[in-house]
């Protein structure tokens, strides 16, 4: 770094040169207000108060937070908290800005603005920006000079986006390519750097239009899956904490047995409240919920939990026993199940979750992803038919993300109906065929994930983003762009199965 060996510089000196914006901007919000948080570094440098206020105002203006200096973290959205964290490192006038998975906790539309902001500041103030991220497509939305691919502690590639997208490196390492690039490869296009595939906007359409159209026309009509019975449904469901504001308003939905469904929407739209109503933590004010056609109005939390399991976002908030076996057995023991019946049930749940070899281990020895599986096992052991997961992949790196999602997919294949609260578009598109969109307490969309992510109106209101596949199809002159996206998803499932 600037001629200095990193080893010899201590963390304080380093933080003068490199500003790091960590992944979880919520947990690292130190100050009580925006202004205070931005000033934190200056305070530690014994900066005099008048000058401190001036600098804080300046950097806050740069990240468009200048008018919110007195707001507390509870009043801010995820995107705004990230801006505060960003401003907090800018006060040092650092040369290098390092972003650790800046998109992990943001909804797609907010993520897009975040990348915009980073891009603007990089251009305006001539900073070196390093972004660590596995959502390549979202980062490539703005100019990136170089991409360094790291695998198993080694540098696997160091090249321009155009070169990287043209190569097989990403696929071989199991990293998600931009979806449009995958589509090109499926269509049999030989992607080369001179086609500029780094951005969808710079892609040389002349050379890919024909193969894409051909590929789309070659599709076969797909068979429809046999209709299943409703397992969970809601009719005119409404809920409010106070009289002033309705959190949920007239929600209707039908979820079929064996489905994998995502519930999406912006922060505060009412997704989590919906889950709480379903689990009976809070009681609906109007309307009714039905489980396999039977009204759940009189069911207690305990009765509901026999049928519907709820897994919290943070596994550390659920685990209360030091040993894995005891943790998984807890629910059964609390229900007074005889010990000889508990044994085989716990064994089975551990096996499903791939934890059988660890049954005698302490929980503390596990990784985050494994802990998540312990919490799922401790719910599965009660044999629920429906599993509700709150943000199952939030704050996870790509490896854990894939690990958890593949596991849930396997669980779903064994017949458990899965509902996921999420704002992750990739998750929606790749794993859940059915998506319910909630905005301001109302249901604004209920269809296939493909329909939702190709509908500009719904996507806009729920802070989602139109998938690049849709834009690619439009650019290639395919009229049925939605059909193209659907075909891509179906085709991909075939490829993975085969």
């Amino acid at each position, binding site marked *: 770094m600037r001629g200095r060996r990193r080893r010899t510089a201590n963390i304080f000196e380093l*933080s003068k040169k490199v500003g790091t914006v960590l992944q979880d901007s919520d*947990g*690292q919000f*130190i100050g009580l207000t925006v202004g205070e948080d931005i000033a*934190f570094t200056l305070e530690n440098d014994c900066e005099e108060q008048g000058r401190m206020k001036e600098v804080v105002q300046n950097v806050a203006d740069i990240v468009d937070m200048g008018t919110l200096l007195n707001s507390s973290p509870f009043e801010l959205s995820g995107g705004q908290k990230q801006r505060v964290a960003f401003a907090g490192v800018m006060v040092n006038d650092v040369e290098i800005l390092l972003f650790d998975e800046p998109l992990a906790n943001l909804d797609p539309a907010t993520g897009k603005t975040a990348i915009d902001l980073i891009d603007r500041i990089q251009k305006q103030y001539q900073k070196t920006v390093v972004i660590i991220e596995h959502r390549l497509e979202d980062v490539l939305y703005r100019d990136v000079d170089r991409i360094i691919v790291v695998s198993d502690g080694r540098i696997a590639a160091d090249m321009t986006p155009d070169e990287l997208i043209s190569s097989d490196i990403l696929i071989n390492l199991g990293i998600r390519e931009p979806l449009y690039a995958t589509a090109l490869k499926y269509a049999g296009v030989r992607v080369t750097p001179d086609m500029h595939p780094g951005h969808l906007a710079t892609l040389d359409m002349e050379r890919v239009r024909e193969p894409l159209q051909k590929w789309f026309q070659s599709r076969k009509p797909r068979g429809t899956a046999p209709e299943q019975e409703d397992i969970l449904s809601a009719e005119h469901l409404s809920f409010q*904490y106070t009289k002033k504001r309705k959190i949920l308003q007239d929600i209707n939905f039908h979820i079929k047995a064996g489905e994998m469904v995502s519930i999406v929407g912006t922060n505060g739209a009412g997704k989590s409240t919906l889950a709480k109503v379903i689990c009976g933590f809070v009681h609906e004010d109007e309307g009714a919920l039905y489980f396999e056609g039977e009204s759940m109005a009189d069911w207690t939390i305990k009765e509901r*939990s026999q049928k519907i399991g709820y897994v919290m976002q*943070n596994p550390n908030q659920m685990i*209360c026993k030091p040993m894995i076996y005891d943790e998984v057995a*807890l629910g059964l023991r609390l229900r007074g199940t005889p010990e000889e019946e508990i044994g085989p049930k716990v064994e089975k749940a551990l096996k499903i979750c791939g934890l059988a070899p660890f049954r005698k281990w302490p929980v503390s020895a596990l990784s985050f992803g494994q802990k998540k599986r312990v919490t799922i096992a401790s719910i599965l052991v009660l044999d629920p038919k429906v599993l509700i997961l709150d943000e199952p992949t939030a704050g996870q790196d790509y490896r854990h993300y894939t690990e958890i999602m593949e596991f849930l997919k396997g669980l779903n294949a064994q017949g458990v109906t899965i509902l996921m609260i999420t704002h992750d578009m990739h998750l929606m598109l790749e794993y859940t065929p059915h998506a319910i969109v909630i905005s301001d307490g109302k249901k604004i969309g209920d269809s296939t994930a493909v329909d939702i992510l190709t509908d500009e109106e719904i996507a806009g209101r729920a802070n989602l983003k139109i998938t690049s596949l849709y834009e690619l199809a439009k650019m290639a002159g395919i009229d049925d762009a939605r059909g193209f996206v659907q075909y891509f998803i179906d085709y991909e499932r075939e490829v993975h199965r085969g």
Partner: protein
Amino acid sequence: MKNKLFDYVERDNFIFRLSGLTKIICFFCLTFAVMLSYDIRPILCVFVFSFVVLHISEIKLSQIRLMLYYTMVFLLLNFILTFLFSPQYGVQIYGTKHVLFQITERYVVTQEQLLYQITKLVKYASVIPLGMLFLLTTNPSEFAASLSSIGVSYKASYALALTLRYFPDMIRDYNDIALAQQSRGLDLSKKEKLGVRLKNIMNICVPLIFSTMDRIEVISNAMDLRGFGKHKKRTWYAKKPLRKADYLSMLFCAAVFALTICISVFINHSRFWNPFI
């Protein structure tokens, strides 16, 4: 939102505008004034004063209701127990005995005992609102700044401020965890026996502790990364400069303190005010 306990809500009025340093000094002056004296006259003045200040500060009843209930229960209990254990303590102190009425041979209600106990009650009742007032009207960061300016190490000050700030978060976490555990069959309702209920509450506390430790780790990493603890000193963004109102308030509270001491020393010639001779 039921997490109002200790939740700092910013308001703009005289009390909130005072610096944290002023508030802590005033709090100590008034508390010691009341604690050192057993003369009900100045104590009643402070008692009235603390409620006037509570009113000026515009703190909502809903914010302090729970604490008020606990305080009242405590005071009542204290009142009854004092009488049960030493019904003649007042007579001992004041040296006279004016009997009002007799319950049993041991329990005789005297004017002296009544005065003693009421004085004690008002003492506590005037200090507790002051404490609540201090907690609820002081911005935790500004409080830390004040503490460090009167010589407390800034690391300790900051730790205290963070604790105050995260208290509402912890209550929120507790509620979430309780719900999730209840859905696994944990019964916290009155249907369950007390022993089992206590054990079940333990099952909530363990994950609460672990998730709080996670939070602490994240925040302390973030603080390290941004240079906390680098120098022997630090400055404070939230520090309020002392204004005229601050000096006047401190002067006023110091005067109250001095006055009660003077009353004890020169007028009563003891900590007790004796109207019986």
